[in-house]
């Protein structure tokens, strides 16, 4: 009986967590220059001078010319386009980091 109840609670918890995660957070894009990459966080300075710190995880795709590259390719000084999601830009998790040619600000 206890096993049954535990199983039901486990299934419910799994469904609640899974279902709640399907509700998307807001998408953000950060465009700029890598200032720092350390401890699974990347700091990007955008053209307005603001620096945003964004989390990375194992699912974060790093690409250059649409090809996946290793995370070790991320270096300070590179121009990047970071697509992230979260409650706010500061709390965001990077989904994809594109390494792009140097951005010349107009």
């Amino acid at each position: 009986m206890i096993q049954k109840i535990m199983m039901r609670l486990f299934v419910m918890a799994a469904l609640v967590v899974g279902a709640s995660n399907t509700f998307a957070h807001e998408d953000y894009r950060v465009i700029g220059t890598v200032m720092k990459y350390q401890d699974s966080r990347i700091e990007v300075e955008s053209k307005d001078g603001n620096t945003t710190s964004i989390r990375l995880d194992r699912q974060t795709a790093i690409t250059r010319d649409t090809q996946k590259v290793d995370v070790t390719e991320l270096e300070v000084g590179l121009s990047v386009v970071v697509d992230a999601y979260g409650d706010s830009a500061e709390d965001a998790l990077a989904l994809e980091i594109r390494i792009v040619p140097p951005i010349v600000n107009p």
Partner: protein
Amino acid sequence: MDQENDIRSPIAPTLVELGRAVGFSIFVTVLILVTLVLPAEYGIDPLGAGRALGITVLAPSTEALVPVPPPNSAVLAPVQEGLVAYYPGEYQVDSREFVLGPYEYVEYKYHLAQNATMLFSWVASGDVAHDFHGDRDGAPASAAQSFDQQPRRKADGSFTAPFSGIHGWYWENPGGNTVTVRVTTSGFYTAAHEFHFDGTRVPREVRALDAITARRD
């Protein structure tokens, strides 16, 4: 000996029992999701249970997470009389220009009632990725319905909204040069919203045709 006989192997549940248990679990899960998780985590409270329990205050106050609410003004829903559609409000016009820096994107959408019509014309100074789409009233942006994603630098046309909600364009500059997008519209919409790549949104005013002709006089 009797004690030995009491040691029995567990009885496996039948398929019916399993189905009943899974069904019950799903029901309770949906109940918890709708009454507790959504109101507390996302401020989405379809049953009003979150407000009644006072847990909607736990939802993050970031305005960007909340779907764009329907406008407070009268909804310009057409009333069909034969081949003619009449609207309970004025014809609106709008014109905007967006300067997209390298890799930037913008979304610009109007609120249209179901079956309301809009004429549009837009042109970009360079290559853009675009998506003409709509979001139903109250639905999250992730549930958007796309109408056109064909590669193009310009488009001229008319649009009749398949549902009440915000309808408009996503333009993305895919390259390293600045691109300008100019859009002009007219029709029976009541509000405009601009969404930026950094997650911010700005409500924009639309003008009645009378306001423009009066200024010329």
